[in-house]
């Protein structure tokens, strides 16, 4: 248990520091305009970098694959574009994914 506590402290520290450093040091000073413009593009980039591989890459070792996640993402995306509702998109996405998993969408040939 002592070893485990040390491991937790180490893992906790290296996780916390990158989360903490910019918030602590950037929030109290002038940020150069160019950096602000760059940071302004980061969320779109990072969300896409998190999302797209989850839709089209799978397996170990990783390969590109046609996944039900991708199939469900198209109507989910259109719903999100149309409604801009976060909660609604989550519920609709889950329902679509569930139906695809159950094979209830013969239209898609599944």
């Amino acid at each position, binding site marked *: 248990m002592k070893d485990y506590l040390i491991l937790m402290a180490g893992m906790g520290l290296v996780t916390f520091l990158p989360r903490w450093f910019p918030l602590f040091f*950037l929030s109290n000073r002038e940020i150069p305009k160019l950096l602000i413009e760059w940071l302004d593009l980061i969320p779109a980039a990072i969300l896409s970098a998190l999302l797209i591989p989850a839709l089209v890459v799978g397996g170990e070792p990783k390969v590109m694959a046609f996944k039900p996640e991708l199939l469900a993402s198209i109507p989910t995306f259109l719903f999100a574009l149309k409604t801009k509702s976060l909660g609604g998109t989550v519920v609709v*996405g889950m329902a679509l994914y569930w139906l695809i998993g159950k094979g209830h969408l013969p239209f898609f040939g599944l």
Partner: protein
Amino acid sequence: MRQNNDITIGASAAWPICLGYIPIGLAFGVLARKAGLTPLQIGMMSVFVFAGSSQFIAVSMLADGVSAIAIILTTFMVNLRHLLMSSSLAVFFKGEDRKKLSLFAYGVTDESFAVNLARLRDGEWNLNRSLVVNQMANAAWLASTVIGGFGGQFIPEKAFGIDYALIAMFICLLVFQFRGRRYVITAMIAGILAVIFSLLIPGNSYIILASVIAATIGLIFRKYLT
């Protein structure tokens, strides 16, 4: 009264994250238990670390008998992407109380980052509400991982498509980012690069690499993209 208000409003923004954490948290608890951790140890990791993917990796490394130093270094690499997220968030918290910011920093995850950022951009959002989102997500994560550790194997998998909750959330949050051509193009570049890099590079450093390159390209060509 205002404080109460922030809690209610923050909580109403946090529920998609909490819902999405349930299946992942349960799965983590089950796996961690199989790897020999007690529910107490599982709960400790969810409190100390609070970072889903690195917790999964740490548990499989523990099961393989890997050294603590190697696990800690891997955790650092896996979670380094939050440096970028916290930098983006910092822009909105100019001059805020640093103690509160430090507490907020603890709860910066992919999911809370994305939800808070979308709201901060809309205006009507503040540090208190952001803090509530982070803490709610943390509570849901802690609870579901510990419950998974006690008996997650009895809960049916893939119920109601709940495995898709976080993906659906990210789809919508990405749509919120589409505020102009340069954001759409930056996202497209990032997505393509992320797929390519994820196939070529082991681990998850593809997220940082693809985001940094895409945002830099977006910045260089911003004149042509507006």
